[in-house]
């Protein structure tokens, strides 16, 4: 297993969580802490950059659901970018794509998050 590494980036009004490595249920503390920082900075839409994601199991998908609920209850939303064809398929299979906007590139994601 590769550790989860999450970096918080700011591009203008958009907050981006750059996720690298593995996403499993064990990633919860790091992911939630990073989201908390982004929300504390006033971000209403947070971009999840999956371009360096190497592995995700069903625990990881479950974690994204709880993160999504947390964002929605705070009046925010999540936007995704950097998904490979494989992970994009998983988002479709699990119907996560009905709740998280997906964009092909970071610029489009930033535009959507800033709207």
């Amino acid at each position, binding site marked *: 297993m590769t550790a989860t590494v999450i970096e918080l980036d700011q591009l203008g009004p958009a907050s981006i969580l750059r996720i690298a490595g593995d996403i499993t249920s064990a990633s919860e503390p790091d992911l939630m802490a990073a989201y908390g920082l982004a929300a504390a900075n006033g971000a209403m839409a947070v971009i999840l950059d999956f371009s360096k994601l190497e592995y995700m199991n069903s625990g990881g998908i479950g974690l994204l659901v709880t993160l999504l609920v947390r964002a929605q209850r705070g009046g925010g939303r999540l936007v995704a970018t950097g998904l490979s064809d494989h992970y994009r398929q998983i988002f479709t299979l699990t119907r*996560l794509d009905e709740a998280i906007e997906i964009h092909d590139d970071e610029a489009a994601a930033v535009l959507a998050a800033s709207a």
Partner: protein
Amino acid sequence: MTEPNDSPPTSRDAANWAGPVDRLSAAGVAGAKDDAVTGKRVSGPLQGFGQLWQKTFTVRLDGADISPTDLIALWKDRFPTFWPKGQRFYAPLSGIAPGEVALLEIAPVPGAPVRLSTGVLVLYADDESFTFMTPEGHTLSAWITFSARRDGDVTIAQAQALERPADPFDELAYMLGGSRLNNRFWEATLGNLATAVGVAGPVVETQVVCIDRMRQWRYWRNVRNSASIRSARRTLTAPIRKLTGRG
């Protein structure tokens, strides 16, 4: 000279996930009296009506000499045998593997004359876990993951569900005792699994957390797919269908 391969590397989890599916098919399942799943879409915790709950059931397999991977292999192989008596799981002929569909017949209340017919999709499976996702019509819109891990010398088995009651009637039933019955079902299942591997007097611990107290009212129309209503209708009309030869 061989050209370099420019295609992106395959993810380590690629073989563990079900492939793309629009509508489910239970063609690979034998034995069930009713197929309420073929033609349905999957419906997960984002597509349900009711509050969102995370339920975690764990049992320590003290005294059992079994590794997490061996436990999961056993659990996949004999999954229906650990269910409480009277509840039926019709496994796919090719076993519990990503993309396979299983059918279920559940008595919502022990001894109930109506048996709920529904199913699950095997969403994910690896050596240490497997996950089911429910179809439209199931009383819950859910994922449930069965897993095993090591804690020192002891293997721990776990079932963890992320679930929303699918429609307003299911939400009401859940609040009025359905949730408690559901807990007992999984507690019994984990207890049976532990007993099967030689644990004496297994103790199942249950943790229930409400992840989202808000109901998703836009999904009230899930009721039109309700397996509960369909199963009740089929039970009531069974004598008529028998007389008219419509099975």
